[in-house]
C-alpha cells in the first residue's frame, strides 16, 4: 500500500509543480541559476568519468577480440556504440542521480525542515512550483548536453588508452569510430536522456519536499531518492529500449 500512497503523492506534487507560475521572470532567472548549479557544474565530473569509461571500454573490447581476423577498427566502433547506446546515457544517468539527485533532495529537504517552504507558502507562493519546476527544466535541458559531452570525452578516453597500451593505432581507432554510424542510436539515447533527466529531478525533489523531521531524515531521504531514481532509470531504460528499437 505504501508504494501506491507514495505514487499518488508524487503525482499530486507534480500537479502543483506544473501549475501556472506567479511571476515568469523570477522562474526564468531561477531556471538559469539551476542550469548553472546542476548542469554546468556537472561538466567536470562527467568529463572525468567519461574519459575513464571510454578508456576501459576500449581495453575490454581489445582484450576480448581474440580472433586475429577481426579488424582492429572494431575496437573504436565497439567503444563508440557502447557509449552512445548505454554508457553515456544510462550509466551517466545513474551517476547523475547520485550527484544531482542527492543535491536536489538535500537542498529542498533542508528548506522543508527549517520552515523555509512554509515561509514561501505563507507569502502566497506555490513553493512546489517555485522550487521544483526550474530544477526539472534545468536537468531535462542539460542532460542531453551532458550526454553529448560524455560521448565525446569517452571517445577521447579510448583514443588515449587504446594506442597507449598498443591495442589499436590512432588511425584504426579513428576509422573505427567513423564506420557504420547509425544516427538513430543518438536520437534514441537523447530521448532516454530527456526521460532520465525528468526522473532524476522530479523523484529527488519529491523525496526532499515530503521529508519530515530533521537533518537525519534529510540524509535518509537523499539515500531513498538516489535508490528509487536508480531503479526507475533502469526500469525506464528497459521500457524505452523495447519501445524504440
Amino acid at each position, binding site marked *: 500500500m505504501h508504494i501506491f500512497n507514495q505514487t499518488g503523492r508524487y503525482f499530486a506534487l507534480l500537479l502543483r509543480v506544473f501549475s501556472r507560475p506567479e511571476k515568469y521572470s523570477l522562474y526564468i532567472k531561477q531556471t538559469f541559476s539551476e542550469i548553472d548549479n546542476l548542469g554546468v557544474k556537472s561538466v567536470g565530473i562527467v568529463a572525468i568519468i567519461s574519459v575513464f569509461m571510454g578508456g576501459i571500454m576500449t581495453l575490454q573490447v581489445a582484450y576480448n577480440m581474440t580472433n586475429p581476423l577481426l579488424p582492429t577498427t572494431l575496437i573504436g566502433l565497439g567503444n563508440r556504440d557502447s557509449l552512445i547506446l548505454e554508457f553515456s546515457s544510462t550509466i551517466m544517468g545513474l551517476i547523475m542521480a547520485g550527484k544531482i539527485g542527492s543535491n536536489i533532495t538535500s537542498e529542498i529537504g533542508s528548506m522543508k525542515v527549517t*520552515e523555509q517552504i512554509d515561509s514561501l507558502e505563507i507569502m502566497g507562493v506555490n513553493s512546489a512550483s517555485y522550487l521544483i519546476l526550474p530544477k526539472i527544466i534545468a536537468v531535462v535541458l542539460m542532460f542531453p548536453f551532458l550526454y553529448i559531452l560524455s560521448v565525446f570525452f569517452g571517445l577521447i578516453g579510448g583514443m588515449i588508452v587504446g594506442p597507449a597500451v598498443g591495442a589499436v593505432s590512432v588511425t584504426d581507432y579513428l576509422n573505427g569510430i567513423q564506420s557504420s554510424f547509425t544516427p538513430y542510436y543518438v536520437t534514441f539515447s537523447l530521448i532516454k536522456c530527456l526521460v532520465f533527466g525528468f526522473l532524476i529531478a522530479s523523484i529527488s525533489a519529491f523525496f526532499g519536499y515530503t521529508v519530515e523531521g530533521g537533518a537525519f531524515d534529510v540524509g535518509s531521504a537523499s539515500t531513498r531518492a538516489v535508490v528509487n531514481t536508480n531503479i526507475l532509470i533502469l526500469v525506464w531504460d528497459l521500457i524505452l529500449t523495447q519501445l524504440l528499437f
Partner: protein
Amino acid sequence: MIEIKNIYKSFDQKEVLKNISMVFNQGETNLIIGRSGSGKTVLLKSIVGLHEVDSGHIFYDNRDFTLMKAKFRKKLRQEMGMVFQGGALFDSMTVEENVRFPLDMFSTLSFAEKQKQVDFCLERVNISDSNKLSPSEISGGMKKRVAIARAIVMNPKYLFCDEPNSGLDPETSMVIDELVHSITVDLKITTIINTHDMNSVMEIGDNILFISEGEMCWEGNRKEILQTENQQLQEFVFANKQYQKIRDDKIKE
C-alpha cells in the same frame, strides 16, 4: 481582526486542538501562551492554513478562510506576514534579497521603489548595515529582525510570530518584543504571537489566550493575568518566584 470559532485539529486520531474560539483584535498584540506541546504552534499554523483544521472556522475580517478556494487563499496570504521560530530565511539569498523577495514575486514596483521599501523595513528593525550579508553570517537576534523586516515588507494586515524570542538573550528578546508591538500599533495590524516567554506576556500582552493540552483555558490581558484565579494558568505563569514578585509588585502599583 481574526476570529477563530470552534477549532478542532487532530493528527493520527490524537486530538491536538479541542474547540478553540477566540477573537484577535486589530492594532493589538495578541498572544497565544501555553506549555511546550500544548498545541500553540499547531493552532498558529492552523490559523494561517499550513494545517487544515478538522472542523471550525477562521475568519479574516469576516472572510471565512476555511471555506476559501485555493486561489483566494493565495491572494489572502499576500496580506499575511509570518516570523518563524528559526527565522526561516532563505540561505541562498542575502539579507536584502530575503526582504525583497515578496516584492520581487508579487509587486509591480520598479527596482528603485522596491529597494526603497526594503531599506525602510531594514531601518525599521535597526539592521540596515547588514543588508549584504548572508543569513549564515548574522546572529540569531539579527535573523529574527530580518524575518520581521521580510514579514512587514508587503505592508501586511496580519502578522504572525512563532516563538520570536526562543534562543535569544533577555535583552534581545525585549528589543524584538518592543519592535513587534510598535509595528503592530503603528501599522494597525492584527498580530498573533506564540510564546512561553513571560517577559513578553507582562510587557506586550494586550490580548492573551492560554491553552493547555489543546484546550482553551483562559483569555484576558496582561493586567488580568496577574489576578487570575485559574489554577493551571497560575502554575504556568508564576512557576518562577521572580514572576510571583513581579505580580505582587504590579498589584501594589
